[in-house]
């Protein structure tokens, strides 16, 4: 990335900042920090991807080939934790760091020093998580949701996981406080809340969700820690605790967390679709209200993750209906995107392809979510591959595809170069093909009863698993192409104009050259 900022130095007044490694350690510049967030999350994405490849290699055939069951469980657990907390969440924070100040016309984030700290906590937490594979007893193996009693009984690996969740939580909370303050206090004159770009709106609401639920996660892992080492019995039945209570508190965090990972994705797609349709976003204010409704509803649906854990029928009905209600504001969004494209002057560059792929596949994931919300069906499919297929459709073809879309969309602004359109399109179509090859068949496996988190399976599941594994290997390799495209774009390529996309209307395109100067909007622009 050094090359990018080597270029950037030419612009604006170049005040003293250290060069070499210390520049990255001490930087308080939102663009540097955003870049580091993105590289960190991509590194974690490769680590989590490696674990996924291990899982799929083991499941390529029935029987135990590569991973012993204990190690397989560590792979599934750490794959989930690393992808959620290490890859997807920091990637969106990276986007927020780069884009929020640029899109609201602010010179930097509100608390630049704290911003540096929130980033540098991440490599510490990531190292703790990954190193837990090498301690006696290995990494945590009780699933990414770390339910007791397994998480109370596990070894040192569980302690490392608890500490790293603490650190990641602290980082997220600081990042959110920074984002909220920046958005609420530092908008350019004239930019009222209802004139903010959708991406900024979705991040404002996401940041509020984060400060709402990350402390609860910190609380529940602290309870786990004191249960393990300090004689408390929050979750230990023998001491009067209740393991089901863990699930309630965990999912009180966990369900809003799902929306924390998808709302910024909605924001990115809501920027890209209007740009490449050359039309303003259809129903802007309804988009804002839909986002807020989703955030509020997400706080009262948590127990749909626990329909089989034991719950009165009234409770099941409440959580079932509340969950299905979320389909309404989500539907508003999908229809608004479709209406934005309707009769638009559309073109299909890579960001637009990923955004349309996002809508198409996210809707499939959303529908399987509504299916899972129905209690009698959920009791059948709980902990099967149907659920795996469902949440990979919303997290991979949802959150991850939107991240790819956003990277392609903003790379010209970040690096000053155009990426290779041909390779970008190849990346999209290969991802699309292999993603569906991997995960679509998992719906069938789940409906046929294949349980998740098990390294071996009945011979009847063999064919679909082989297809799924081939898809996974293809998807994994395809992401190396993405790395190549991004590095190529940083190192050179066609010079990007200030406004490479005709339909773009936000401040970073209308007011700043490409690449965006190291210091931007020191004098705020005036928004009419």
């Amino acid at each position, binding site marked *: 990335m050094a090359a990018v900022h080597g270029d950037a130095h030419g612009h604006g007044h170049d005040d003293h900042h250290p060069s070499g490694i210390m520049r990255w350690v001490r930087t308080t510049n939102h663009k540097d920090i955003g870049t580091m967030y993105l590289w960190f999350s991509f590194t974690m994405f490769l680590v989590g991807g490696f674990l996924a490849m291990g899982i799929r290699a083991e499941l390529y055939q029935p029987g135990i080939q590569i991973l012993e069951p204990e190690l397989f469980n560590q792979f599934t657990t750490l794959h989930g934790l690393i992808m959620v907390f290490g890859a997807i969440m920091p990637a969106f924070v990276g986007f927020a760091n780069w884009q929020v100040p640029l899109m609201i016309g602010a010179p930097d984030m509100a608390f630049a020093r704290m911003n540096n700290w929130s980033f540098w906590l991440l490599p510490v937490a990531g190292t703790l998580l990954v190193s837990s594979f090498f301690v006696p007893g290995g990494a945590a193996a009780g699933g990414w949701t770390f339910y007791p009693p397994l998480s109370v009984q596990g070894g040192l690996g569980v302690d490392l996981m608890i500490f790293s969740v603490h650190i990641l939580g602290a980082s997220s909370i600081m990042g959110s406080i920074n984002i909220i303050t920046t958005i609420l206090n530092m908008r350019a004159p004239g930019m009222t809340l209802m004139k903010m770009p959708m991406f900024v709106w979705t991040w404002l609401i996401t940041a509020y969700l984060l400060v*709402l639920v990350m402390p609860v996660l910190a609380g529940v892992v602290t309870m786990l820690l004191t249960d393990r080492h300090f004689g408390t019995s929050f979750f230990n039945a023998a001491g009067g605790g209740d393991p089901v209570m863990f699930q309630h*508190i965990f999912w009180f965090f966990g369900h809003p967390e799902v929306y924390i990972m998808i709302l910024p994705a909605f924001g990115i797609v809501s920027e890209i679709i209007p740009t490449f349709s050359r039309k303003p976003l259809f129903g802007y204010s309804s988009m804002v209200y839909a986002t807020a409704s989703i955030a509020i509803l997400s706080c009262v649906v948590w127990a749909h993750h626990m329909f089989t854990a034991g719950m009165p029928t009234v409770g099941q009905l409440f959580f079932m209906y509340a969950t299905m209600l979320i389909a309404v504001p989500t539907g508003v969004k999908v229809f608004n995107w479709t209406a934005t494209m309707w009769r638009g002057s559309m073109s299909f560059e890579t960001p637009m392809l990923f955004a349309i792929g996002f809508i198409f596949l996210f809707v499939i994931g959303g529908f399987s979510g509504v299916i899972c919300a129905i209690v009698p069906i959920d009791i059948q499919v709980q902990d099967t591959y149907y659920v795996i297929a469902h949440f990979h459709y919303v997290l991979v073809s949802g959150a991850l595809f939107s991240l790819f879309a956003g990277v392609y969309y903003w790379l010209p602004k970040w690096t000053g170069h155009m990426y290779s359109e041909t390779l970008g399109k190849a990346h999209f179509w290969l991802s699309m093909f292999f993603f569906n090859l991997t995960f679509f068949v998992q719906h069938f496996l789940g409906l046929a009863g294949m349980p998740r988190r098990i390294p071996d399976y009945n011979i009847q599941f063999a064919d679909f698993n082989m297809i799924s594994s081939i898809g996974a290997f293809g998807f994994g390799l395809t992401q190396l192409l993405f790395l190549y495209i991004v590095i190529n774009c940083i190192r050179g390529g066609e010079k990007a104009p200030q406004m490479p996309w005709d339909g773009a209307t936000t401040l970073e395109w209308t007011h700043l050259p490409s690449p965006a100067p190291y210091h931007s909007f020191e004098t705020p622009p005036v928004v009419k």
Partner: protein
Amino acid sequence: MGLMNSNSRANVLMFKKLMVFSLVMFVFGYALVPFYEKFCEVTGINNLLQPDVLTKDNWVDETRWVTIEFDANIRGLPWQFKPLQSSARIHPGEPITVMYEITNSSNREIAGQAIPSYSPRFLEKHLKKFECFCFTKQVLKANETRQMPVQFVIEPGLPTDVDTVTISYTFFELPDGGSTAKK
């Protein structure tokens, strides 16, 4: 760096508010624990440690018999634990008392807590327990033996296709002779 702009006081104020909010949410996480327990108590879910009261309209259904099997388990403590009868046959609605015996075969004082489990699971709804050794912790001195009763009624509302039920208890050790389960 454009940091010390006119916004910085407003920013610090906002920072403080959001930090306080985060701390409140951390405490809220802990507050969910008593809230959960109170919720379960009020709604009667998960009521393991409170004696039930018999409703006045209880009656004995003499037209049918239910066989109750008694099961006793030990989890990780040096005790022996068994019911004095392995099963009983009663009419639904008829009160019954069953004796259990525990022996501490170690040379130290140990506190234990029994946790019940029922099969079928919905038996819990129809089982009214007036007295049980599982309502409190049991402290046994070295080599002490104790006999303890369980007194209950299975309500006639038990579905008629159920003719055998199992009531099981498992004793867990309470660390450091700790206090009994809270609820």
